[in-house]
């Protein structure tokens, strides 16, 4: 059964444990600036919104890549960056209309959420259930899909 990250901003308290967990899991450091999930801060309203790649079916990043360095993981459905193939040209970072593929100057490659191979550290770390890893048929995905469909229309 395909699973997806369900993000529920109304449950987020802005504790940033997801960012810490993500950067530690993927980069080996506790450094939110290296996290693939980001909590956006609406400080004047006291609200927070965690956001990361929704593994969209359009896969703008994958199609824009000139060297086939972004592939679909058959187990998780995630769009994975193959670090040994990525040349660091950054075309995917401007092609992704959600802004969720980022360039990491330290490695000279791009980074994006790969669902930690099927056990996302952000969901495990989230203490309030704002980030959960659920059956993709679960209702939360409908919202993400609705949101995805209201962005760039498919031709």
């Amino acid at each position, binding site marked *: 059964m395909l699973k997806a990250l369900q993000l529920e901003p109304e449950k987020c308290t802005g504790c940033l444990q997801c960012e810490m967990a993500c950067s530690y899991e993927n980069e080996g450091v506790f450094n939110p600036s290296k996290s693939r999930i980001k909590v956006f801060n*609406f400080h004047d309203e006291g609200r927070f919104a965690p956001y990361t790649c929704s593994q969209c079916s359009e896969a703008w990043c994958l199609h824009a890549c000139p060297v086939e360095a972004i592939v679909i993981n058959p187990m998780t459905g995630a769009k994975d960056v193959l670090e040994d193939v990525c040349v660091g040209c950054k075309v995917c970072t*401007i*092609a*992704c209309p959600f802004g969720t*593929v980022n360039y990491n100057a330290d490695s000279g490659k791009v980074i994006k959420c790969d669902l930690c191979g099927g056990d996302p550290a952000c969901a495990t770390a989230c203490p309030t259930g704002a980030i959960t890893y659920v059956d993709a048929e679960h209702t939360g995905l409908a919202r993400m899909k609705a949101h995805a469909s209201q962005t760039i229309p498919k031709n």
Partner: protein
Amino acid sequence: MKHVVIGAGPSGVVAAETLRKLDASASVTIVGDEPEAPYSRMALPYFLVKQIPEEGTHLRKGANHFAQQRIDIVQDRVTAVDRAAKSLTLASGGKMAYDKLLIATGSRPVAPPIPGMDLPGIFSCWTLADGRAIAQRAKPGAKVLLMGAGFIGCIILEALAQSGADLTVVEMEDRMVPRMMNDTAGNMIKAWCQSHGVHVHTSTRVTGIAKGSAHPFKVDLSTGQQLDADLIVSATGVRPNVEFLDGAGLEVQQGIFINRHMQTNDPDIYAAGDVAQGRDFSTGESSVQAIQPTATEHGQLAARNMAGHTGAVHRGSVNMNVLDTLGLISSSFGLWMGKPGGDSAELVNRERYRYLNLQFDGDTLVGATSLGMTQHVGVIRGLIQTRTRLGKWKDKLLEDPTRLMEAYLASTQAVGFNAALLK
């Protein structure tokens, strides 16, 4: 059904794969004139600095990829198109019939009309063969002259500087990357390059190249200065490869004119990528966008239409670029130069080489330029292409243009206390 694609670049390859996906029984052939497996010119600079082997530039990595997809790759050059007979003339002497034809022949560098440009040892950085030749000559300490500081020039610049060459850039416009960066950003990139030891001459032309004595070349500049060079790399512009269509009766302006189904004025002939003059999302007009995302978008759409899925209408491609100039990352999107009467927001930090400029039409984002920004830049494309009404977030962006992601999330998603009710 016999589909023939001329050109083995990203546009042609994506089109061929899409055709195969949509029609299992069709015959799909790519005709390309270079000897290598289909590769990406985008990746050449990385090959140049030996970051990747030659195979690393290949568009598809599996050795049998095209055979498995039952896509025939023919190494040949198409010299003429006979529309009445629906047949191509090949340089090798043969003919090839087609039912539907896609022209994805790309573009090629143009040599400026300067005395001495025909001397041996002056290269473009366009093909794998060029890449090999430049890599061999761009030794540490070698005096390298780069003509043109446009997008392609700057990509090569990065590679040449990394190879340790003593690098001089000559650009005739008054700033670097003039067709992608405004005055402020283009001159910040120039200052950055200079601070990294590259000699940059803007508002300057090369007026003549002659054989030198101590070094292979002596180069005259419009400023009266004379430079020595061991290697000259020319990146002064590109031109669509359309000459083989002379007499074929296809409408060619800047490139091959196509409608929103990627069709030329012959309904069985389509065009895509650098050679095609297709719809620009921002202006609604047709223009040549020689960029990777547009090439693949064109290729996919053309293939869907060729396979009979005529509902696939091109809404227009957003012109956008991202560039890494010696570690300074810049990007520009859509109407980065602005729209008359539209508001704009600008944030400049010259000391830290940070720049962000947003351009609005009413309360929608229509263009942007950034320097030193590597996080969430893609959202600019998203906001432009969805024409998201920003409402009150436009004012917040005018105050602080860096809050693009917040503006996007607040304008498109339920993020409030009662957001659960909106699911």
